[in-house]
Structure formats: structure tokens, C-alpha cells
């Protein structure tokens, strides 16, 4: 007998019916809702490819059972912005060409968003520390840190202007 789970994703109410209430949120996002931006990297909550915001807090969702997010608000990388209306972080990542393969980016963008929500003027060390929740194997770290610094500056200018 399928069970129904209600929560919101990127500001929209969603309702999914699943036989297995242990289904990870990541699989619900990708396979039920067709949101492919959040990636599977390890299934062990180690690499951060699956980072999403749950009620504003960055959380890895590859093992997080769907029952655990019932009634909560989820933000994924698709919820940050799009080509027509990019989030300042997304624009900064494009400007800085802050990637090689790009597989880790969705999770990193979410971790960076969570950091800037809390700390609009982070130091380089604070950015690096926040991103230690994510693994980048290609070695794009410095570009990524630069992009977050740039986005933070743009967002501060926007907030004060």
C-alpha cells in the first residue's frame, strides 16, 4: 500500500506516493520528480554531490529517507536560478569558469548558498571550511573559492544598493 508524502521543492508543493518510505530523498528528486541537478556521488553521505537545503540548512540527501522530509521545504540547485535568471552564485561560477567536469557543482552551489545565507562576508578560510563538506576531484578548488568570494561581493553590493 503506497504511502503519500507531502513537502515542497523549490517553492512548489509536491506529493509523492511510494511503497518504500525509506526511499532516499535523492532518488525521489531524480527518479520521481525528474530533477536531475542533484547528483549521486557515493550514497554514503560523504562526498556532498547530493547537497540540498532542508528548511534552509545544507543536508546530504542520498540516504535521507523521504519520510524525514515530510512537511519540509527543499531547495535544490534548480531552485537557485536558471539561464534566464541566474543566482549570483551561478553567474559567478560561469564567470570564473569554476569547474572541470562539473559533477560536484550542484552540491557545492548549495553549500555555498547556505554559507552566504548565514555569513554574507566570509573569509577565504571560512569558504574553504564550509566547502569541506564537498569533494572536488578535478582540482577546481581555487576557482570555486574565487567564485564564491565574487558572488558574496555582488550579493552584498546588491543588498546595500
Amino acid at each position, binding site marked *: 500500500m503506497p504511502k503519500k508524502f507531502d513537502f515542497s521543492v523549490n517553492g512548489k508543493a509536491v506529493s509523492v506516493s511510494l511503497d518504500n518510505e525509506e526511499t532516499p530523498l535523492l532518488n525521489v528528486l531524480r527518479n520521481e520528480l525528474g530533477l536531475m541537478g542533484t547528483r549521486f556521488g557515493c550514497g554514503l553521505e560523504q562526498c556532498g554531490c547530493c547537497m540540498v537545503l532542508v528548511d534552509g540548512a545544507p543536508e546530504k540527501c542520498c540516504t535521507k529517507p523521504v519520510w524525514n522530509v515530510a512537511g519540509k521545504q527543499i531547495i535544490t540547485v534548480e531552485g537557485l536560478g536558471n539561464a534566464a535568471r541566474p543566482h549570483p552564485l551561478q553567474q559567478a561560477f560561469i564567470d570564473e569558469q569554476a569547474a572541470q567536469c562539473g559533477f560536484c557543482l550542484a552540491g557545492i552551489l548549495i553549500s555555498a548558498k547556505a554559507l552566504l545565507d548565514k555569513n554574507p562576508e566570509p573569509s577565504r578560510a571560512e569558504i574553504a571550511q564550509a566547502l569541506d563538506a564537498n*569533494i572536488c576531484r578535478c582540482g577546481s578548488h581555487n576557482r570555486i573559492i574565487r567564485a564564491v568570494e565574487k558572488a558574496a561581493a555582488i550579493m552584498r553590493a546588491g543588498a546595500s544598493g
Partner: protein
Amino acid sequence: MNAPLPGPLNDNPNLNRWVAFPSPGKVTVLTGRVELGQGVLTAMAQIAADELDIAIERVTVRSGDTEKAPNEGYTAGSQSIQFGGIAIRQACADVRTLFLEQAAKVLGCKVDDLSIRDGRIHRNGTSTGQDYWTLSGAVDLTVKATGGGARKRVADLKSVGTSNARFDLPGKIFGESAFIHDMQIDGMVHARVVRQPNRGATIGAIDENAIRRAAKGPIEFVRNGNFLAILGADETAVEAAGVAAVNHVTWRNIEAPTPTQQEANWLLQRPVVERVFGAPDAGNAQSKERYEATYTRGYLAHASISPSCGLAIYRDSKLTVWTHCQGVYPLRAALAKTLKLEPSSIVVHHVQGSGCYGHNGADDAAADAAIIAMQKPGQAIRVRWRREEEFIYEPKTPAMVVKVRALLDDAGKPVDWTQEIWSPTHNQRPGAGGNLLGAIALPDPPPEPPPNDVPEANGGGATRNAEPLYDIPAKRILHHLVTEAPVRTSALRGLGAMPNVFALECCIDELAERAGQDPVQYRLSITGDVRARAVIEKVAAMAKWQAGAPGGTGTGRGIAFARYKNRAAYSSVVVELSVDEEIRLHRVWCATDAGLVINPDGVINQLEGGIIQSASWVLKEQVRFDNGVASFDWETYPVLKFSEVPEIEIELINTKDEVPLGVGEVTAGPTAAAIGNAVSHALGARIRDLPLTRERIMAALLKE
């Protein structure tokens, strides 16, 4: 008489394999090279845009497709730009010439009166109303390239030399379906393979009930010999079953690697094939002094951020496969052999995966999907390896022991150099020296390939960069090709270059110290190669290198140099770090000469990536064995974190008249050796075994 065609163009001479004009205003450029996160497709578009005289926005690059794209073997060895790029350049130049000739015919004028501006034909500077697309019906691109099209002079290149933004990044940044993992095919089912632990292992018992209980959803078993897979429509159920199956399927004839085997020195007493290159043995050379040191490195994993994925469907006697591997044509050939199909009945498409850095599980995951698809005709199959599966079963780069013996003259400079190497093979790519993993589990498995390594003509495997570029009168390589390794070994970024350059560039520092000379000066005193000298001098200037900086203070600097394969890009690296119980990287400077630079930011990005990955190998990485591969996740195989990455400054020496060269691998060796030399400077003690762990630092300090 035209110059010989570039290799890949000679192999695939029909111009329609390279260029097409599919619709007004659009150009498709085809390449056998594939995007692995290195930005190669954008660079190819820049090359094509310049040779065709069109805006880059009009160019779409299609790559890695056995139906349409040219066969260029593997995307490997930092050769895409050097060889694949020049092929596109010449193909486009030939195409441009054919169109100008056709335009001259239509317009009744001389070719010399015509030029092309963003695809439109101009006559003496005025638009003619003709363009590539009005003429394309009359220009036959099925003809063979002649090499007759004049390639643009370097001074006339417009897009080449600029940091054009990567085409593929926005989609990845906005979270669109960008990777093979995101592909959806109607009716697709998910699959996980219950991996055969080793060649010859046979299935004992399968506790299907326990696996089904763990799945909590419908699953199906598919078996062929010792190849066992679990299928189902719900990925959650299939994944859970795949995890559970590890404990609910028993195997006979298991051979599990042991902790002793994980160390490089284990290789010293194994059966080998002897290979010798270079000058005859020095014998009783007249030299007065002899210096000898031995360096080691353990097994490394590619550790791609995503586990491998492959999709396949077998329908109407045709097998279609989607893969993120490095060579779609070699994979097609290997699949044909495994599945007993004609290559012509298999189509292999490349779809991007995560960064691979060499031969990881990609080919094997594609083969898994294909093997299952053959047993389930009409059913689309998606195989995604589990994280542990990728770590345990991906091919590892082999452990190596490198012993350097130098004979020295009165001034302490080397006059005779022997680099002696113990290493298993660096090449078990399917079809080129190895087998597809799934094939070994099938009934009637293919035999083990005979011992081999990458030929010297292709840069060598274990011998890559084993010969110093320095001016040394006699040099030789002794390669003990170890024929049996505890795990499958194959190509990782740079192959033997990293351990070889680590060994020889650390040794050069040791010789400099012995001669009482500064490492930079010592290197310059034994190299006359102008481009080598230029990168060494440049990086020393960037880092404000000071000769005679006191050692043993806990903070140190080191320099190293290499020319990749001794025939590609030149790079020199300086590292600044501090050591207490652990090593902390502060800053890295790098000067590189990669010939004509196609995309400066793309080159810098690749160099940065090579530096950071090499630093991670040197400081942290070794695959551990303990009753099997014991490095199976990111906690048991840690890599460099954001907070551990140094600041990096890179300068390119843009030698515009030189051939453009790849840069993905050139920094691996110099970074490793520069770290080794900086640690030695900081500690006043030398560590010759990688990785540079806390235990090794403590041992080196106690020895002093």
C-alpha cells in the same frame, strides 16, 4: 605536393566525418576526442571557427560516436589538442577551400578575389549573397581530405588564443541533465552487478530471499556464468539489493590481496619481463663517484567523483551502448569480441561522465549494461556502479619502485644515469592489453593478456619520463615489468611519469645539495634546452626564489621540472610548505610552455587541476589492501579537501610558433617532486616513499 595529413585525418580522410552544415547558419564539427571535464570540445570549436571563418556561436561539436564521428582511438595521453586539434584544423581548411572554389565557379571569378566573413562569401570585400549554406548542396564533403587547404597563419587566428567560455558549464551549473547518469530511456530498468571478486572465482550460493527482503521492492536476477546482475524498475530497490548481495552471495576461489602486497617493495621479488632501453651499461666507468637512491609509490585510485554508469539496449539485432569511456571505437571492438557480435551491429555513443583521469570503471559499466541487454532483448538497461564497487573494482595505477644510479664527474654533475623500475603494467584498457571486467565472469572467459605495457612510441607506461631531459652523456632505463599484480592495474593521469619524475627530480636536488649548489642553478647548469631553461627561470622569478635559504626550519621550498614524455609540454613548479606532524601546502607557482595556446584559461584550469590532484596523491593517497581492497569509500581513501588546497599562481609561456600541446598530465611529476624537495628542505631530512604520511615524517625526523 602537400604535407602528409595529420594522423587522425589520414585515418579518417572523408571530410564529412569532420564537418557538416546541417541547417542555415549552423556548422557541426565532429571529433573522436571526448569531453572528460578538460574543456576539449570548446577548444576544438575555437580551432574550427578560425579555420572556417565563422563565429564560434555557430559551431556545435559532436564527439565520440561510432556512427558519425571519426575514429581517434582513446582520448588520452594529453594528445587531443596536439593531434586531434590539428586534424580538425586541416579538415576545416580543406573544407573552406572547397567552398571558395565552388563560390568562384558560381560567381565566375577567381578564388583569390574571395574571402569568408562569418560564413558569408565576400568578393573584394563586398558580400556576394553566397555562403556556406547556399553552396553546401553543391559541395561534396564525402571526398577525401587532401591537405591542400592553407591553414591560417598564427597571426590571423582570432578565437584561438582567447579564453572562450566552456560550452558545457552553464547546463551543469543550472542543474540540467548533463551527464550519462541523468539519461532516461523509455522503459529503462536499473541494474546492479554482483561483482565476481577476481578472475576464476565462481558463485557458490545465492540467498535470493535475503536479497529480495533487503530490496523491499520487485527485483529480478539475471545470470550468465559467474556474471550475476539484479534488475528492477525502482532504483532504490535495486541499489538496496546490490548492497545486500555482497553479503548474500558466496564465492569460491577467492584471491584477496594482503597488506604486504599493498607496499611497492613487494614488487621487488616478483616474476618479471626484462626491458632495457638506452645506452649500454657503463660497466667499470671511469667516473669517481656514484650516487644511488630508491623511491617508491603505492597503488592509487582514479577515485572519480561519480561511480561509473553505462546504458544499453539490444533491439532488432542491433546493440546500442551509451558510455563515458575514453574510446568508443576500442570499446565497440572489445564488446564485439565479448558478445560475439559484428562491430557493425554495435553503436557506441559517448555521453559525459564525471572527470576520469584515465582508465576507470567506465568501459566496464558499459559492458555490464551490454551483457545484460543481450539477455533482455528490447529492454533498455541502466547500470550504475556503487561507490564501493568503483573503488574496489576500478583499475588502479600500479605501485612502483624507482632506483636511480648516477655516476658523477669532479664537479658533481651526472655523466651517466640509470633509472631502474619495478612496475606492473600501466595499460589494461579493453582491446589494448586488458579485458572488460564483465567478460571475465562470463562462461568461456577470454585468456589473460600477455604481459605488456604502453609502447615507447606512445610515450611508454612505467618508463614514461624515466629518462632525464638533462644533458647527461649516457642514460638508460631498466624496466622490470612485473607480470602479476595483486589487483588490475591500468592508466592514470601521466602513467609512470609521476613516480619517475618524483624519483629523478628528487635525486637531482640531492645531487645539487651534494655538490653544494642551489637546486635552480644546478638544473640550469645541466640543461641546454632553451624551453626547459625558460620555464625553470620563469618559475624561479615568479616565486622570488632565493638560493641558499636555510633548511630544517619547518618551512621549506622546492622546485622541480619535467617535459612531459620528453616531447610534449614543459613545466616547472615551485612549492612552499610547512611541516610539523603533517604537511601544510602554502603556495604553488608554475610556469608552463605548451606551445601555441588555444584557450589560456582552459590550459590554466588543467594545470591547476593537475597540481592539486598530484598534491593529493603525494600527501594522502594510497590504496590499502586487507583481505581485499580496503580503500572503498572517501573515508578509507581520503583526498585533498578545500581547506588543504594551496594558492596557485600559473604563467604560460605562449610560444606561438610551436605546436599546441596538451597539459592535463604535465604538472603531475613536477608537483610531486617539488613537494618532496620542499619537505626535505623544511625537515632537513629526505623522504623517498609516497605518500608522505605522518608516520614517514616522524620516522625521517627520528633518523636525523
